[in-house]
């Protein structure tokens, strides 16, 4: 008998259908991976199971948990179930904890609430839970506040809270999406270990096929509020039958076709580089400890040197806070270095003035992670894209301006008619295209792309990667491609630099660096990155082996079940 069975679950929010006949079941000790792109209804399914749906939501169907239908339970009973029987881990560790309460108070809260034990006792148990999730109380006292912990540590606290009452089912909604890959690997391993040891069932929701393939026994693929396909992880991924799941799988592995040969700096020593960075240092002053001492200094970028050649696609990988973005900002001329030098087209972007300055600035353009945040919502797209053209003022007239905007829009696959629309009328992928068009309009030589596809769904991500590869072929662009996602970097760059704590620890041809990492940090990064293909292979192998065992178990398992009831 499954622990929880969702039968033909329908959900509408303000009469807009969100879920359409979703059915699945999770057995005891089993991990079900729920995969899908944004808006597919994954999170709503989880919230429906907890009955924590937003205002105006109406659910029908059945969610059978421990012989009762969750949808029919009165609120009192639901409160006893939540936290006690079903624990939940959320996506955003930064906001999932109450900022004004200590972590000890927050972990012990559900223990006091459900078991009516004393505060003292609950705090002792909270200490044990902290130990369990890898935050020993000796180093992380219970009196700490959430802001005194890092993102990964906070997610550990959230996990401790979710498992405090030893629930039978744990729901983890994108538990590692906001974290760095190495932290992601640690958190996933922790969840795996806890689920196994406590014989919990797990519903793991993720957009990342590799994470799910690694974690889940069975997988359900969702699209537009429906489960299109489900089955044991290994055999499902090896024999995908639904066209959507196949396209999702392909998009996750997508590598744009490279028509240009990789540009490698070793092979082209003689070529004059587009950008030359030498011994770059950038410091930030930290808050003063005392009125009389100098404030301590944080070195975000520490003696970094590299070149970007014309037409080269250079990757920059590293964890959040390693200095990637500071380095990018320096190249864009937004962040004056404290030491070393940058030259763009042979000139120093910080000292050139007048026409030359404009020339330098228009040859380097940028694409950010969140295009929507970088658009003025009250400007039409035509104006948004034309913005950087002020760098050419006096040189081109209105007609030429218009022609350039139209050209840029059609280069990124949009129509010139889109000039009259506003940013909110576009989807996430289209907005990223607009951002790329805006970068292209000055006819730059180099585009700095700071996590340009991180916020996008896999299928859209594949399209944008194709577009970037295409533009490079067509326009001979060079890229500085910043990302935490190694598979994306591998797909689109010729060379890669690995950055850690402000330093470039490894730099070389992308395939070589990732296949044969030399620096320990690169090795850590590569091993932590989830890999879809190897995960599937491992799963399939295990399933084939276990296929026999499953059958054996059903033959002898009847007695076990009878004995238990």
């Amino acid at each position, binding site marked *: 008998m499954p622990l929880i069975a969702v039968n033909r679950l329908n959900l509408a929010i303000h009469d807009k259908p969100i879920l359409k006949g979703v059915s699945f079941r999770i057995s005891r000790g089993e991990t079900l991976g729920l995969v899908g792109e944004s808006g597919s209804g994954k999170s709503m399914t989880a919230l429906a199971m*907890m009955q924590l749906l937003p205002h105006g939501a109406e659910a029908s169907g059945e969610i059978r948990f421990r012989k009762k239908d969750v949808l029919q339970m009165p*609120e009192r009973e639901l409160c006893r179930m939540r*936290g006690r029987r079903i624990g939940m881990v959320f996506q955003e560790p930064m*906001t999932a904890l109450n900022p*004004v309460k200590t972590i000890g108070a927050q972990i012990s*809260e559900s223990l006091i609430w459900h078991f009516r034990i004393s505060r003292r006792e609950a705090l002792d148990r909270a200490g044990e839970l902290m130990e369990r999730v890898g935050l020993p109380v000796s180093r992380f006292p219970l009196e700490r506040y959430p802001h005194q912990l890092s993102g990964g540590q906070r997610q550990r606290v959230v996990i401790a809270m979710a498992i405090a009452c030893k629930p039978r089912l744990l729901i983890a909604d994108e538990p590692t999406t906001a974290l760095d890959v190495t932290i992601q690997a640690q958190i996933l391993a922790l969840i795996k270990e806890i689920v196994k040891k406590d014989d919990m069932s797990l519903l793991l929701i993720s957009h990342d096929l590799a994470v799910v393939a690694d974690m889940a026994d069975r997988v359900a693929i969702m699209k537009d509020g429906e489960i299109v396909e489900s089955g044991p992880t290994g055999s499902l991924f090896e024999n995908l039958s639904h066209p959507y799941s196949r396209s999702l799988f392909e998009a996750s592995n997508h590598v744009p076709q490279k028509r240009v040969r990789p540009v490698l700096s070793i092979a082209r020593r003689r070529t004059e580089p587009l950008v030359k960075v030498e011994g770059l240092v950038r410091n930030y002053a930290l*808050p003063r400890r005392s009125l009389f001492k100098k404030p301590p200094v944080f070195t975000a970028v520490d003696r970094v040197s590299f070149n970007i050649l014309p037409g080269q696609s250079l990757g920059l990988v590293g964890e959040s806070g390693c200095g990637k973005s500071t380095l990018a900002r320096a190249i864009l001329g937004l962040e004056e270095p404290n030491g070393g030098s940058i030259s763009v087209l042979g000139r120093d972007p910080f000292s050139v003035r007048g026409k030359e300055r404009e020339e330098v600035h228009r040859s380097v353009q940028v694409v950010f992670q969140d295009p929507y945040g970088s658009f003025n919502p009250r400007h039409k797209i035509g104006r948004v894209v034309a913005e950087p053209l002020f760098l050419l003022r006096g040189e081109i007239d209105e007609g030429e301006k218009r022609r350039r905007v139209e050209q840029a829009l059609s280069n990124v696959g949009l129509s010139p008619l889109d000039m009259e629309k506003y940013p909110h009328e576009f989807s996430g992928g289209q907005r990223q295209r607009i951002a790329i068009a805006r970068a292209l309009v000055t006819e730059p030589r180099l585009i700095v792309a700071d996590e340009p596809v991180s916020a996008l769904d896999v299928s859209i991500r594949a399209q944008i990667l194709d577009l970037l590869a295409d533009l490079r072929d067509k326009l001979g662009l060079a890229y500085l491609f910043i990302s935490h996602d190694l598979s994306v970097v591998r797909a689109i760059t010729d060379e890669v630099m690995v950055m850690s704590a402000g330093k470039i620890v490894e730099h070389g041809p992308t395939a070589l660096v990732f296949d044969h990492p030399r620096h320990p940090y690169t090795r850590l990064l590569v091993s932590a990155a989830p890999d879809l293909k190897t995960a599937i292979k491992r799963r399939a192998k295990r399933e084939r082996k276990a296929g026999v065992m499953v059958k054996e178990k059903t033959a002898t398992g009847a007695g076990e079940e009878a004995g238990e009831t």
Partner: protein
Amino acid sequence: MLAYVLKRSLSLFATLAVATAVVFVVLEVLPGDPAALMLGVEAREDTIAALHRQLGLDQPALSRYFTWLAGMITGDLGTSYTYSVPVSELVGERLAVTLPLALMALLLSVVIAFPVAVVAARNRGRAADTSIMALTQVGIAVPNFWFAILLVYVFAVALRLVPSGGFPGWSAGAGAAFQALILPAVALALPQASILARVLRSALVDTLHEDYIRTARAKGLTRHAALWRHAVRNALIPVLTILGLQFSFLIAGTIIIENVFYLPGIGRLVFQAITQRDLIVVKSVVVLLVASVVIVTFLVDIAYAAVDPRLRRR
């Protein structure tokens, strides 16, 4: 936390020093010779000069500023021109009326605003919320002196529950004094309570959408428990700002309300002192008001840190 309090205290003293200097300079450049005013239009030049000497007005400005400052620290605020009594005595008497009045009004506004805001936030978008919000809109729009007149008409004239004005003094017993202060306090509190309720309601509504409220609900807490345990304290942060600002409005409000109710408070004192050009009283009262507002701001800052641990490091 201690470092934070020390830092705040430093800035408190700096603000007070600047404030006294500004008050002094402003009153210095105001036209009108207090000595000439006291002696009337027919006074002779030499009597005016004599009074100048007596009041210390012949001294240079800077030295007068420091004498005044030193006097304030030792409690000697000088002597009122018009009442011919020590200003400190005058202010002390009046403060015994105004301070309880302002505190009562502040307390009342909090006591009214809190439950009202919680009910509105919990029933967001429903009838209870809309009607409460409509009422607070009225509370903000109607001036407090009109409320005062209305209250006097209903509770003093029609129902004869409380006196319509005047103050019997604390010597007449706390009960009588309280009766005299309750209507003015309510009149002062209602508009403030309306503002406070609106701010707290919207802060609560925002907070109830936060992820950590969802986390609390996922732990099994009821809607009610999640609100009281996790939302209220977070929603207090914007409310404290408003509460601090409201204190100065309350003080300003007392000037009108004390006149409506014939209360011998600071508000009436400063009003009379200004019309009579009793500059030494005006100066002292203004500094007193400024100091009270600055101190309240300081207390609000400390309260911020008490509510929000993230601020303690700064």
